[in-house]
């Protein structure tokens, strides 16, 4: 079943949903990157919760004008309006009062959501509202998605993606260093607004598939995940889009392959799975490689200090150092240096003396600046330089 879902053989509707989710994931991952780099990831939480009253109002308005309140385009338009109001409220509170941005976000998301719930209960008591199923927008629902809905989601996702591509340079610049961007003549306020507008668009487009509570996951998790794999902003953008797209595609396919697997939560969990893998196993920034690097460093320091202690004839008490040295056959169990231990100690001592001399020589100022008490000078200087240094060393040492 899963294989069939992955290869789009589960029928028309499942294929539509899978493609839509994939496109949404790419758009969300790409757009979320700017939000994440700007350190404002949770603003999207306020935006997404603020869509709910808009959905309710749009339904009421459409019914009042005699239409079918369930028209998705109308509902999404309404949700965009209140989401925009929510965003403006966050910015206004942040700017005009002494409340910090996190308080403003929390206040806006809970109040708008509360108002939305009030409207939903109003709608539920109306005769037209009983089957409205507006609450499906809370967690998303892909069952019985219409072709026109899927088309709209796909078009919306593509549009957001296109805009993000066109404006990625100014948005990256502002996200990375807004002061620098401002000094360079960028209109930071307007570019921030554009970023937020794209985030809002992703939220609105994602309401049907992922739902308003979980859409923030698609905006936040992919860029955070991508950050583990690269240090370059333009690559974060790309990787984040790929991760978002993969999560959307895999999640929708898994959810289509068996009953009782809600699409939105599955997509989010797939995304989180990719995040967890990256957190532990990503090269250089992952937890595992950090641990290995830390261990290697620790070992290096202890070995060096142990050898210097041997050279100076100091006793070694530190357990880890003793174990390390005896494992390498540098000391005997009673702490006395072996032959190879003596050799190692002598070479460590020589290196230390070379460094000491080098740091007193103005000609080697640049090299001396890289002194960290660990690197072997033989790996830093050329053979000739080393020879010269040793000659000097012989002069100064009586």
């Amino acid at each position: 079943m899963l294989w069939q879902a992955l290869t789009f053989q589960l029928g028309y509707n499942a294929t539509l949903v899978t493609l839509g989710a994939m496109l949404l994931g790419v758009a969300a991952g790409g757009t979320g990157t700017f939000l994440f780099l700007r350190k404002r990831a949770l603003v999207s939480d306020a935006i997404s919760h603020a869509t709910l009253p808009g959905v309710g109002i749009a339904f009421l308005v459409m019914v009042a004008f005699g239409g079918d309140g369930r028209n998705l385009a109308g509902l999404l338009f309404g949700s965009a309006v209140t989401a925009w109001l929510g965003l403006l409220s966050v910015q206004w509170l942040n700017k005009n009062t002494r409340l910090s941005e996190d308080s403003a976000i929390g206040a806006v998301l809970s109040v708008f959501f509360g108002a939305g719930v009030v409207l939903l209960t109003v709608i539920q008591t109306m005769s037209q509202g009983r089957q409205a199923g507006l609450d499906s927008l809370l967690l998303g629902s892909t069952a019985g998605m219409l072709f026109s809905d899927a088309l709209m989601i796909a078009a919306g996702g593509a549009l957001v993606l296109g805009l993000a591509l066109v404006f990625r340079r100014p948005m990256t610049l502002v996200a990375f260093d807004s002061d620098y961007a401002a000094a360079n003549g960028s209109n930071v306020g307007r570019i921030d607004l554009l970023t937020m507008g794209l985030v809002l668009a992703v939220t609105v487009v994602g309401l049907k598939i992922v739902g308003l509570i979980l859409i923030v996951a698609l905006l936040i998790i992919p860029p955070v995940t991508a950050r583990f794999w690269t240090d370059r902003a333009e690559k974060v953008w790309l990787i984040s889009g790929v991760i978002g797209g993969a999560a959307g595609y895999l999640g929708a396919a898994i959810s289509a392959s068996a009953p009782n697997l809600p699409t939105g939560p599955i997509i989010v969990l797939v995304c989180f799975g990719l995040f967890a893998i990256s957190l532990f196993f990503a090269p250089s920034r992952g937890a595992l490689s950090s641990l290995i690097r830390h261990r290697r460093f620790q070992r290096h320091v202890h070995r060096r200090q142990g050898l210097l202690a041997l050279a100076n004839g100091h006793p070694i008490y530190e357990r880890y150092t003793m174990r390390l040295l005896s494992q390498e056959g540098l000391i005997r169990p009673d702490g006395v240096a072996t032959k190879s231990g003596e050799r190692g100690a002598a070479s460590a001592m020589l290196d230390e003396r070379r460094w000491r001399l080098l740091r007193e020589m103005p000609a080697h100022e640049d090299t001396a600046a890289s002194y960290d008490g660990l690197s072997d000078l033989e790996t830093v200087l050329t053979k000739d330089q080393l020879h010269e240094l040793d000659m000097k060393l012989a002069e100064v040492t009586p």
Partner: protein
Amino acid sequence: MSGSEFVPLSLTPMLIGIFAAIACALPGNFLVLRKQALIGDAISHVVLPGIVLAFLVTGSVAAAPMMIGAAGAALVAVILIELIRRLGKIETGAAMGVTFTALFAAGVLLLERSDTSRVHLDVEHALMGNLESLIWLDATGWHSLLDPNALAGLPSELFRIAVVLVLIIALLITFWRPLKIATFDEEFAHGLGIPTTALSLGLVMTAAIAAVAAFDAVGSIIVIAMFICPPAAARLMTDGLKAQVWWSVGFATASAILGYVLAGYGPLWLGGSDSVSAAGMIATVSGVILAVSALAGPRRKGLMA
């Protein structure tokens, strides 16, 4: 309205609403000042997987396992956020976003996969609560407050939230000084020998207890709204911490009473026939209070302005 109608139908939900609002607003004051307001948001989301897991393990919706499950989930979330923040060197906001959405998604999935048709456990209930249903059927009027038989029929949620409120007030009074110092100057507090990390974790756990108890009765919207809106509004009214806490208690109480009354009777006044969600209305009223104090509060700009 007569006592014979008010006491059985509205007194207990109103009291539960007030107690829940205050229980959340008290720790909320410190969360807002410490720029940790969104911890409240995160906690209220992860309560869902906690109670679903508790239900799957015990097979019942009894209060004790639910509360333990929810508190456990809150603790797991806090640890996960901290772990992701440190291991991945990711800023707190993003780490929170990753954690609570993933846990919430897991909760929804668990709920969908398990058979909860016998019991009242669904996402909507978790979000919106059902304050209106916490009625006191044994009461017949004000005199029932003195009738032991009728008092035995009080909804157990009232008892639980009252106990939690007393506990939170006691904790607040006990730790007032260190909490105050650590909130405004963490370094200084550290220098005085106050265990700031433990204090910070304790605050978050207190918030979690408040969230869980309130959630049990009123759903998670009120929880987030009351964590943030009354304290934020109070912050715009005064510079003193003690005064701010009192203002926030007042705002929380006002939101609960006004919200409940508007939800229950507002539609009737407007010619409708059914009431609307009390939880949603309480959150909305708290937002209106915040908006008013943001526009006109005497200390809205802070000392520098």
